[in-house]
């Protein structure tokens, strides 16, 4: 809802601005480990990416951190992760049928052969929260929104009332993930609908004038709703806000708070997911 408020004002403000690419001289001294990984309740192979931070105008693929020891743990059992292409990829994977369990807390431990910014061991923990059942998904076309109309993607579910819940929404079109990078994902906290039956909560807007969001008859839309922790919610929120560059509400820019120890950047997330599908008519 807050995001919609931002968006509403954004449209109001996008009135007269003109843009121009410019040269900016920046000092580039930062060097940190970057960790990017997750586990969820789906049974599949999970990957953890280890990279390094670079100068802002580095403009090449980020360097990979290889030969690390990466161990995932659910509090009882350790699961060592193997580098997919040892010494090359910097991608560390579980086996093909790994499945997270709600109620457990997952810990990721990373040990590097060489220290980065003075540290060689890093750790992150994330609780895996349950999520309410997604009853169904509907699509609603509004021709008056946007130049070529907009599809609203609405979901139906009972929001549990007791605790504060944080949600992450992903969208697939014909099985292909449309929200394929973190800033495209949608998040919401339950403050505005705690304990209500969500009878058509709009979670995505697909602007039909944008090629990547276009829907045609017969397309299958899948919504993935995930229950995430407050920390992960804040992390995604900060990524989205740092991408939302307007001096009106961004506030002064600040570094994004992840959950990796020893000054590393990034997030290790655990969450449970539920899916619902709809064929576009």
């Amino acid at each position: 809802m807050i995001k919609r408020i931002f968006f509403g004002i954004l449209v109001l403000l996008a009135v007269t601005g003109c843009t121009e690419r410019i040269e900016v001289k920046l000092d580039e001294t930062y060097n940190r480990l970057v960790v990017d990984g997750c586990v969820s309740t789906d049974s599949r192979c999970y990957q953890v990416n280890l990279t390094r931070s670079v100068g802002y105008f580095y403009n090449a693929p980020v360097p990979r951190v290889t030969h690390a020891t990466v161990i995932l743990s659910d509090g009882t059992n350790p699961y060592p992760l193997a580098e997919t292409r040892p010494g090359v990829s910097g991608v560390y994977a579980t086996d093909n049928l790994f499945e997270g369990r709600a109620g457990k807390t997952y810990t990721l431990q990373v040990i590097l052969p060489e220290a980065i910014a003075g540290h060689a061991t890093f750790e992150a923990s994330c609780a895996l929260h349950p999520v309410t059942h997604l009853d169904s998904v509907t699509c609603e076309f509004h021709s008056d929104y946007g130049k070529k109309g907009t599809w609203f993607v609405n979901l139906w579910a009972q929001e549990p009332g007791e605790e504060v819940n944080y949600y992450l929404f992903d969208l697939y079109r014909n099985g292909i993930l449309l929200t394929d990078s973190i800033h495209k994902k949608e998040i919401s906290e339950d403050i505005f609908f705690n304990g209500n039956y969500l009878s058509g909560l709009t979670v995505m807007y697909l602007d039909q004038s944008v090629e990547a969001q276009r829907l045609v008859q017969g397309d299958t839309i899948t919504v993935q709703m995930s229950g995430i922790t407050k920390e992960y919610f804040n992390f995604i929120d900060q990524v989205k806000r740092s991408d939302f560059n307007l001096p009106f509400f961004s506030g002064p820019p600040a570094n994004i708070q992840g959950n990796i120890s020893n000054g590393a950047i990034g997030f290790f997330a655990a969450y449970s997911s539920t899916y619902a599908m709809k064929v576009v008519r």
Partner: protein
Amino acid sequence: MMKKLFLLNLAFLYILVAPAMSQGVVKANQYTISGKVTDKSCGEMLTGATVFVKELKTGAVSDMYGNYSLTLTGGIYTLVYSYIGFTTIERSIDFQANQTLTVELTPRLHNLKEVEIRSEKEDVNIKKPEMSTFRMDIRTIQRIPALMGEVDVIKAIQMLPGVQSVGEGSSGFSVRGGAPDQNLVLLDEATVYNVSHLMGFFSVFNNDAIRDVKLYKGDIPANYGSRLSSVLDVRMNEGNSKKYEVNGGIGIIASRLTLEGPLIKDRTSFIVSGRRTYAGLFLPLSSNKALADNRLYFYDFNAKINHRIDNNNQIFLSGYFGRDVFKNDYAGLRWGNETGTLRWNHLFTKKLFSNFSFIYTNYRYALTMPGGVNNSFEWTSNLRDLGLKGDFSYYLNTRNTMRFGASVVYHMLNPGIAMGIGNESIFSEVKIPANNAVETCVYASNEQKLSDRFTVKYGIRFSLFHNVGPGTVFHYDSAWMATDSSVYPAGKLYNTYGGMEPRLGLLYDINGKSSVKASYARTFQYFQLAQNSTVGTPLDIWFTSGPNVKPQIADQVALGYFRNLRRNTIETSVEVYYKWMQNVIDFRDYARLLLNTKLEGEIRTGRAWSYGIEFLVRLNEEKLSGWVSYTWSRTFRQMAEINAGNKYPAPYDKPHNLAIVLNYNISKRISVSANWVYATGAPVTFPTGRAEVGGKIIPIYSDRNAFRYPDYHRLDLSLTYYSKVKPGRRFNWDLNFSVYNAYNRKNTWSINFEQDHENPDITYAEKVYLFGIVPSLTFNFHFNND
């Protein structure tokens, strides 16, 4: 409890004032002359006119309502009444009894409506123990080239020394390093909480309805308080009490119409003024076709009526109403201010003048977000003040002028209610608890002439602030997480702050042409804006001091040298200042300010300090007028948890600031104006590194405000062509052609760092600028029934 505190206030006032009053026992053989100084052409009262006693080389200055009072030992004296742009009048008075004398001064006509632009009084710059202030009448402001021809009070203020604009086209301003919410903006004594129209490109002040403005950057008189950094006192026109007049203007974005005149000649006058922008505003300027569905407009009204009951009583009723409306498919937003002031101006004796005011102000907004089936919701918020205030001036003798008074303001805040629209809505109501507060104050000050050369001004203000229930206060742990809360019933005073605010001013008149002044002022602020961006939105969230938020306190010292040249037509000054601020508000990184019930957990406080030197040359010559100002200043902040606790430049720290504002009357029918402004680029935080997470490049930032935007500079030009002046001519007009940003500089509004769509490994910097060259044409007309 509340009554007790109020009585305490009164007792305090009595202690302050009584000893001074007792000195005022009338000595034998002393007589007082009092009265008004008014403009003969329209009956408007003249503020700051001088009444000079030729024989004694002393005198008095008329107050805000044109009243003056002079007490002299018996004898025959020559009184000289003068006001800039008006013909001076001399009167020989035999002081054998108390008497009343109202004097009407005739404007020295240059152009029928356009009186020459001069400051209030020939040598007030030198002789008055007042510094760090700037007063402008509306005619000065009307000549400044303006964006889209919409002449604006706030944009004029932003070109004064020590004042920084917070951003291109913004109505926010920073005074001597203060935050924009540290400025008290008053319209006929009522606080205006949001001065912006159209996101700040224009201010709420319609120049046809405004008489003059005065900015106090420091040396704030004891009768003002409740903000740390400045007071901008805007006064509305009283309305012509002699004849009916219609004034209006047609510009490229808005039209104005004003009607004024006497209801009862010389007794009751009124003014009504309205302004509205055209529909479809801005759309021709936008290259984005999607904006074609947007509707954006504003309108406002000013009205004032004043009635002179007799020589000792006058009442005024004034009001303002303004609304901005924005609508498109995705959102609807309405916001605006309403103010109302009822004043009674009463002269108890020839020496004791008073003014009582009842003040109302309301700032509100509503945001509607239409959604799908049951996703629509609305968010509303308002902030209301009810105030009562009494101000007294006591003209003890030619050496002492005392001012004292008291005020009570009741603040009612509804920070926000968001709720779904319709029965089927999936949204529950989210309400930020309403809260109320009472702000009271008493003050007393005296301006005392110790010798012909040395004048002191000393005063004290005692302010008290109470949080009044109903209220919900959360308690926070050391990590700023709310642990539990206290709920207070209606009417309960659950928290009190208060403080003494001493004020001191010194004047040493060196030789009648130059003087040295010094001042000290302490100010308290109990009311602030939750805003963590440099540029404001219409969705302002004001919050009060309380158990979790201490009042902000500022101490400012200033020293200045003032010199007038060429028979007072050129005023020059140099001022240095240092300002210390405590409990200054900032917010944690990625603070959530909108609809947050635990807003106070997002606040981080600390200290701020600012220092600088300001040079000003003000020209008041027949043909050439305006000013040139240069300021060098620095402002820093230091807050727990922000920038790792290290000091950082404040958002408005722009060390070099130059403004040249000039108007030249080529002939009686043609006048040209130009202004050029230059300022160091605002400080900004840039990314220095990047990391890749979730398929997205995330920035790693520098220290807070470690970089700067490119320097800002801009030239504006205008030419005004007037209709022929003929005595007795009823209809006059002028045509104004202006160019904003004449050399088309693409001044940086913001710099964004973007990820390339084609190759996501590439990042680049992109500058956003708001305006290229903007020409405009405005037609103004004046019609009277003379």
